[in-house]
């Protein structure tokens, strides 16, 4: 299987929204390549006739009634984790610049 070279590590880091230094890319590339080599052992197993399992609870389509309960998180509590709020909203970095609108 593929060794994790710097391009792959940089690409994966970008997908995962992680900012890495050049040194980190090299370090993690080496460490993860070893892990990927190990996990590639699964190719030895014949799964041609096997269905995948994603969960062991055996449950499907569990839904809650569309009712309003007494205990709901008040807006102030929901916002309490961030200092970057305004008028009951979380603020984020602008996506559009004024000139794009």
């Amino acid at each position, binding site marked *: 299987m593929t060794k994790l070279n710097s391009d792959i590590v940089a690409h994966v880091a970008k997908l995962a929204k992680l*900012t890495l230094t050049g040194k980190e890319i090299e370090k993690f590339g080496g460490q993860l390549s070893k892990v990927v080599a190990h996990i590639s052992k699964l190719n030895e197993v014949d799964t041609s006739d096997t269905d995948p399992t994603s*969960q062991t609870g055996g449950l499907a389509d569990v839904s809650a009634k569309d009712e309003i309960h007494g205990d709901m998180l008040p807006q102030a509590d929901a916002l309490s984790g961030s200092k970057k709020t305004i008028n009951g909203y979380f603020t984020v970095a602008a996506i559009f610049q004024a000139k794009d609108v």
Partner: protein
Amino acid sequence: MDIPLTIRETQEGLLNGELSAVRLVKEYLDRIDKYNRILNVYLTITRDKALEDAERVDRVISDLGKDALSAYPLIGVAVNYKDLYLTKNIRTTAASRVLENYIPPYSATVVERLERAGVICLGKTNHDAWAHGSSGENSDFGPTVNPWNKSYVPGGSSSGPAASLAANLALVSTGTDTGSSVRLPASFCNLFGLKPTYGAVSRYGVIAMASSLDTIGNFGRCTEDIEKVFDVIKGEDGKDSTAINGKWSEPKERLKIGIPKEYFIKGIDRGVENMVLEAAKTFEKEGVELVNISLPHTEYAIDVYYIVMPAEVSSNLGRYDGIRYGNDRLSFGDEAKRRIMLGTYVLSSGYYDAYYLKAMKVRSKLIEDFNEAFKKVDAIIAPVSPTPPFKLGEKTSDPLQMYLADIFTVSANLAGIPGLAIPSGFNKDGLPLGFQLMGPRFSERTLFKLGKVFETATNYKPKTAEL
């Protein structure tokens, strides 16, 4: 004063007036003040709350007398929570710099249930950040050390919860087990530790690691204490759609324990292997039948785990973007970054089929192995760790070596079955050893019965470390 080491002794003392909860809590807090700096067990000590809880306990016992126990089954029990458990208005960090100042606006279901049962909360304990680890060395706040020998790891990821009991800094503690994280530190710290059936205990309010593998586990110094806490926390709560009210199978009169040959391989420590086989013989002397069984896909479990788990981690840790809570993603430690990237890689276009889909299929095979085995036996005995506790720093330079500490524990998580870690004594170097019993889904009662059989047969007495 001698702090009682079990729930039974503690509650007897409180109910017959020999102990007061306030005095008991002051003893615990004194010990924590004395030993926490060297052991690094607690990240947050809830001093005021502990004393308030204790005062309430003393009032309730004074009002209700022996009736207090039926209303509050865990009255007076000093507990701590692994710092993945959200505790309303009490800092919860996941042992990570990302959440170093996070104050949750609500509590986990398990926390609420334990509080309603009358516990006393001593604080939040240290662990591998995000539950990523098997030794406690991945905490962003420094490692916890093993109270039995401070040069050694206490096991992880629930390092603080386990060490707290070994050091007599709490009566019971709570953890999570996604791949080994209750059973391994239990075995390294001379404790009982339960990984329950997946779905038996609500995960609501416990910071998620891998959602198809995470379980809410607990530590105690005897089987009875494990069972008492489990009975309070288990069951549906209307908030976790994977939680199920189990149809608890009552243990049979005559039980059969399977010895799986694939768990006794070259490379496992000889002392560990002998200890597990001796434990099996102990059960046999008590009338349990031993049966040789095979779990043919065991060697692939670790590889399935290190694909499925990072994949789910990469999804669950996507929420930490610094927008609604916490610091941004630059605050993640190395192990979190490794697992997020590994997960992203195995899910990414071009690699998904070869890794993630393949792993989900081999997971089915592991489950089939257990289903076949449980047609023949009621429980399976196995080592927890392939080695005795290892030294701090011994495995930190090679992530893969650390991952391989989980080879015997991950199968239970992949199959969603329960596992009870049972302490079996100390090796020639004075380090704790333990083994595990795994059973079919919802067979906790059988595991508890066997745990008690082992305690009686070995004249087991709870013990804490000399510090």
